[in-house]
């Protein structure tokens, strides 16, 4: 299976920190929910390190 990042909805507070560090326009808060755009994601993991709740997880 391909590696991709997932949002753990139980942890995410929809704060937008992950979006501020994304160079690839691969995430967005739609209304109040975070969405990841897999096709733009380069798996650089910046968002994982930026997240206050470590809500972004790598799925292998």
């Amino acid at each position, binding site marked *: 299976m391909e590696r991709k990042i997932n949002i753990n909805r139980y942890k995410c507070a929809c704060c937008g*920190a992950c979006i501020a560090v994304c160079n690839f326009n691969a995430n967005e808060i739609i209304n*109040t929910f975070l969405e990841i755009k897999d096709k733009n994601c380069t798996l650089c993991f*910046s968002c994982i390190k930026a997240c206050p709740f470590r809500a972004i997880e790598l799925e292998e």
Partner: protein
Amino acid sequence: MTDYDIIIVGAGPAGSTVARSAAENGLNVLLLEKRQEIGVPVRCAEGVGKEKFNEIFKDIDKKWISAEVDGAKVYSPDKKTEIVLSGDKAGNEAGYVLNRKIFDKDLVKLATLAGSDLMVKTTATGLKKNKDQGTIELTMQNSDEIFTAETKILIGADGIESKIGNWAGMNTTLNLNELESCVQYQMTNIDFDERFCHFYLSYETIPGGYLWIFPKGKNVANIGLGVLSSLSKKSPKEYLDNFVNNNFPDGKIIEINAGGVPVGYPLKSAVNDNVMLVGDAARHVDPITGGGILNAMIGGLFATNIAIESINKKDYSVKTLKKYDELWKNDFGKTLHRNKKVQEKLLTTDDKTLNSIFHSMENYNITEANTKKLLYEIIKRNPKLLWDLKGLFI
């Protein structure tokens, strides 16, 4: 004919300040908010300096303010020394802790009363330059409805997660060493000195940031911390839980907030053709304190002035809008730049050194202290450590 003189994306303090002042000046204004409710979720510790806040608002509504403080206490990593910034009540360091839920919504109400249009639960989804008219066409979505509007000026007030800057060809993406990753609990049932905002520093337990306790009323406070994403080894939540469990074991959490705070150097420019960025979107945040509300509103007023000028001249080019850069750079931009230099130095200072710096300040008379004076005094008393920063304070 264009649909609007100004469209503003984001209805936080920066956006609603622009909307209100532009509408008061007779412009045709639309304010957009992607969320269904203004002001939530809160992503903020809610502290502002009293003096500047009073300058901006002639009529402060009491409902905007949760608590008033006389000053700040800053603690050394070993907690053996504290620096108190206070002075008289009208002084520089006295402050308000706001109720952002009420404050943000009221600012938007004031903008609409001044004549601004408003759309909530409406997301900006893209922009296109209209070359013939020299204007911008903004695409928006509300529910299933996708529609466009043409505007002379577009204001990006879309916060930490700003898209407008990047869409308009400005690179506003932050590196991990330019982002404070923050978690905050609003807690009740806690005992602390409610006359002050409290700041704790420690490279070990709060790497690259600080922990705060801001009073929100009797036995209630915002307790949170920010750590630099490039330095933190654990999640910010783990660092905060550790502090809270040790210091306020009986406290009850009534609200959880999170957020990112930009702490890089200020942008070289916050404008492009037709577009100006304000507030967190423009990264107008103090790299030491993380404070951004006042800059957002002051910058918003600057942006409005330049928008009016460019609309009168019918020239929305980057050349005209550049004046906005001059205004914010000559105002709070200088402090942002200076404090970034100091913050960089702090990032390389270990706890042992920090403790000795605090210790050196023990008999400092602080009645008239403000942050700038304090930093200057710290440098004077620790010349070997901090001499390279001296030039910043002359």
